[in-house]
């Protein structure tokens, strides 16, 4: 069997191996990979998300189990130090020798650190850093704990990402750039200026045209950076992000051909000067170019897989370096020849200082083809323009109209996906074309989930997902498939549409909605869903005559039905805080009605086994003692879990219990598409597990950090960091908006986690809606929430005070008897339903003569 050795298990090395696995080629070859790092491949592109809550595990792209399962041999922490091309053997730092038939170098690159004189001691090792590996992140976090000021050297793409990270670590942050503008490679002067204003607005200080001469010990800070122009900057931490260099040392020592400025020279098949040795990814030099992005590396990996397998190989033909990113919340995109270097090229630009948007298009001399573009502040046009550029399509309108899409002519520029050729690349991360997506649809895919699973599109950076959805829907339409997200057979609308109808037309009852917008009698799906929507917007008493038939059994009897038909009783214990007196009342009531008593996973007490006729009596007692319903039965706010916080805990920095109680009382009446849970932790130790909740709040010195859309349960999801250092009022304002936006737009039974994952544009879009008020609805969202908060009533209190409603709480309408089918046994001092076996035995005993 042919032996392949892959040196480097970074993003591209792993992709190469994964392609072999995906294409079922591992039966024919034996693969071994070595990594100098301590772990297998992880997602370097998403590195910065580590500072917004992702863990090293979240970033992993593969696992030992996955490699084991497919028979891939791997060695981590073992650098390849020598290649013997004659014997076809590699030697590693630990002394391992392995032979190969084909060798693949995927050694990536390393951060360039300019040779500036600087202190060389242990402190410097810990506080003068670079940004490329998970270990670097850990070092940054550690240094961040005892640094007040941080400087990033280099104002390129990575430098700005690093600046964001320093900001997230709570440092006063500076960016020092040699060139006269930020992101000199990607954007031009006009774009650079707007970018700079936006980034400075976010509190990062930008210093351009600064050439660092030396780093010396500082007076009040750890270091002082002296610049060539005589100025200086004081800082505690320095992060170099001044570009990357291909990791070509091993190739150099092996005698492979390198470029004049480094990089392993490869041909169109990705072979180096030794035909049995390939180089792929950031270490490879193709036609004098290094590609510092992951997508071209993936293409090289594919080409190499084909070539080694001896298949009619696709050749590597270079790659488009167009990029779209969000840097510190600012959209930045660059396409093709952004600097109009092509001969005869014409450029058109628009600099809108009021909106802080900069747009530029570069066309050929005839003005009918797009050669390049730059977007800063608003990159919505990126997808369409990229397609115009990549497919060399005639411009739909005169170039100047591309810049002003709100005009009538501009509107015409929004081209339909139908006009794209089949070869148009939709997803650059995984090289998926329009044709492949359409084929997947013809093969039966109907959702984005299907498309992701079959083509891989939109599973990388996610930048292509909006376009991929459009392509999919257009093809579904071409096939005559109706794209239906109707809630059920009675309404030809999605839940979100029904919510809009109810809200806008001020519909107050299910009957009205059914007669005006639906058909039939309704069912167990649409009735509770509409009940929930009505409750969200009008917040009537849920057992009001108009609504009672909509409630699922749990809501109708204000308790969760248990397996034997009895109910549970869960009073609200906001934040998990309870007085001894109230605790005693719970005990007394449980004892009186012989209820099974358990502490729940939500920091409160559940009393099980109450029969219908007992519920009102139990609740009357609880209400008299000051309890309220806990909505354990509702699709609504369940619990706000808290930790004890600064009140008692030696580490607490804010009053987490107080905040938890405040929030639980604020949102307790809100009916939603699914249940909602919060957590509030008093410091970053996170004892309240806030990051697994729909809304998570973690206290920091500077205020509250807000996390959104986490989930425990069947498919756990870490919440996304949404905003930091919030004061109480802003915190609540953001939560009002997020929750109202969720209840308006989510599907039936969709938790916030799934909702966010399906929200086009993801958490960035949610931030735009909630923080920047992109849709101009924030005021309305807050008003909606205000109404819910103001109109809260305890449903159990309203019920125990209503004779007619109480009549429903009995097993029989015509007899005062309990259900004779119930049977119990005692276990560990409490009552529980008899199992089926136990029931049979009891019956036998009863019937025996």
């Amino acid at each position, binding site marked *: 069997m042919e032996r392949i050795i892959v040196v480097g298990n970074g993003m591209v090395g792993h992709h190469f191996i994964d392609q072999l696995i995906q294409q079922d080629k591992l039966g024919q070859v034996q693969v071994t990979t070595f990594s100098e790092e301590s772990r297998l491949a992880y997602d370097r592109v998403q590195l910065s998300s580590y500072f917004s809550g992702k863990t090293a595990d979240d970033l992993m792209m593969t696992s030992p189990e996955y490699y084991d399962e497919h028979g891939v041999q791997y060695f981590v922490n073992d650098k390849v130090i020598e290649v013997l091309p004659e014997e076809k053997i590699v030697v590693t730092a630990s002394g391992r020798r392995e032979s190969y038939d084909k060798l693949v170098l995927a050694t990536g690159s390393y951060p360039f650190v300019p040779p500036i004189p600087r202190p060389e001691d242990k402190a410097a090792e810990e506080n003068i850093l670079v940004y490329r590996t998970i270990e670097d992140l850990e070092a940054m976090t550690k240094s961040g704990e005892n640094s007040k000021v941080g400087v990033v050297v280099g104002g390129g793409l990575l430098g700005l990402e690093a600046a964001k990270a320093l900001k997230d670590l709570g440092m006063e942050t500076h960016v020092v750039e040699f060139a006269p503008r930020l992101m000199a490679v990607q954007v031009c002067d006009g774009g650079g200026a707007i970018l700079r204003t936006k980034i400075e607005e976010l509190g990062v200080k930008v210093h351009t045209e600064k050439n660092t001469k030396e780093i010396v010990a500082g007076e009040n800070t750890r270091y002082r950076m002296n610049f060539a122009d005589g100025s200086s900057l004081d800082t505690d931490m320095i992060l170099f992000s001044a570009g990357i260099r291909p990791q070509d040392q091993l190739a150099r020592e092996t005698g492979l051909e390198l470029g004049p400025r480094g990089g392993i020279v490869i041909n169109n098949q990705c072979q180096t000067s030794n035909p049995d040795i390939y180089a792929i990814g950031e270490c490879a030099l193709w036609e004098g170019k290094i590609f510092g992005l992951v997508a071209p590396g993936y293409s090289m990996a594919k080409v190499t897989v084909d070539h080694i397998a001896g298949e009619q190989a696709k050749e590597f033909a270079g790659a488009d370096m167009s990029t779209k990113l969000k840097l510190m919340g600012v959209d930045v995109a660059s396409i093709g020849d952004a600097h109009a270097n092509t001969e005869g090229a014409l450029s058109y630009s628009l600099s809108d200082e009021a909106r802080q948007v900069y747009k530029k298009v570069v066309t050929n001399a005839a003005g009918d083809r797009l050669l390049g573009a730059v977007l800063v502040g608003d990159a919505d046009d990126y997808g369409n323009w990229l397609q115009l550029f990549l497919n060399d399509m005639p411009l739909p309108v005169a170039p100047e109209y591309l810049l002003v899409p709100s005009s009538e002519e501009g509107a015409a520029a929004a081209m339909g996906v139908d006009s794209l050729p089949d070869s148009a690349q939709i997803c650059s991360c995984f090289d998926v074309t329009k044709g492949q997506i359409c084929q997947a649809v013809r093969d039966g895919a109907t959702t984005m989930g299907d498309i992701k699973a079959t083509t891989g599109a939109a599973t990388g950076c996610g930048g292509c997902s909006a376009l991929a959805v459009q392509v999919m829907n257009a093809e579904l339409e071409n096939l005559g498939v109706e794209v239906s997200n109707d809630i059920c*057979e*009675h309404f030809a609308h999605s839940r979100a549409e029904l919510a809009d109808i109810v809200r806008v037309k001020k519909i107050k009852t299910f*009957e009205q909605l059914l007669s005006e917008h639906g058909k*039939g*009698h*309704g*069912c*167990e799906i*649409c*009735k*509770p869903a509409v009940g929930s929507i009505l409750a969200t917007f009008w917040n009537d008493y849920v057992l009001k*005559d108009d609504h*009672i*038939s*909509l*409630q*699922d*059994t*749990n809501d*109708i*009897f204000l308790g969760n*039905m248990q*397996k*034997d*038909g009895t109910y549970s009783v869960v009073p609200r214990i906001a934040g998990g805080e309870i007085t001894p007196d109230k605790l005693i009342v719970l005990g007394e009531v449980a004892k009186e009605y012989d209820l099974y008593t358990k502490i729940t996973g939500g920091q409160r007490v559940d009393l099980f086994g109450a029969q219908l006729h007992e519920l009102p009596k139990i609740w009357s007692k609880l209400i008299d003692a000051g309890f309220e319903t806990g909505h354990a039965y509702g699709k609504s706010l369940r619990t706000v879990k808290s930790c004890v916080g600064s009140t008692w805990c030696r580490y607490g920095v804010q009053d987490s219990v107080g905040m938890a109680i405040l929030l639980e009382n604020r949102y307790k009446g809100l009916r939603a598409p699914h249940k909602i849970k919060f957590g509030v932790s008093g410091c970053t130790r996170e004892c309240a597990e806030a990051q697994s909740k729909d809304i998570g709040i973690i206290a920091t010195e500077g205020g509250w950090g807000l996390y959104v859309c986490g989930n425990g349960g069947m498919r756990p999801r870490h919440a996304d960091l949404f905003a930091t250092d919030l004061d109480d009022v802003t915190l609540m304002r953001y939560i009002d908006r997020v929750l109202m936006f969720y209840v308006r737009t989510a599907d039936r039974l969709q938790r916030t986690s799934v909702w966010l994952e399906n929200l086009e544009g993801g958490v960035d879009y949610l931030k735009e809606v909630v923080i920047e008020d992109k849709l101009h609805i924030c005021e309305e969202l807050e008003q909606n929430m205000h109404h819910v908060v103001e109109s809260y009533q305890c449903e159990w209190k309203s019920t125990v005070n209503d004779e007619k409603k109480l*009549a*429903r709480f009995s*097993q*029989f*309408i*015509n*007899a005062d*008897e309990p*259900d004779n*089918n119930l049977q119990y046994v005692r276990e560990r001092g409490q009552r529980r339903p008899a199992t*089926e076996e136990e029931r049979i035995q009891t019956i036998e005993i009863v019937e025996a003569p």
Partner: protein
Amino acid sequence: MSELATETWTEVCRKSQLSPGTGVCALVKGKQIAIFWEGISDQIFALSNYCPFGKVNMLSRGLIGDFKGELMVASPLYKQRFSLQTGQCLDDESVSIPTYQVKIEGDAIKIAA
């Protein structure tokens, strides 16, 4: 569902005691019978209160509506649907539950069981 000689009509409750779109349970000669008032068509149905899937007496507490035009109740525990007309389970052909005749005299609801 023919009326057998042994079956007699029993008055179980008044219609004014019910809410449209919901059910209640009546005890008739030891049998638990679920009674539903379907509001849109203004019809009353009676069927067994026992759910053979959940093995619990609680169908009267289920949500009612229609499935492709067939009026039905969905069991509260595991959501199987039963035809209000025939008692046939709409999710499992092999299961059906007893139904009972209903008549309304003035405000009185009477069941044959």
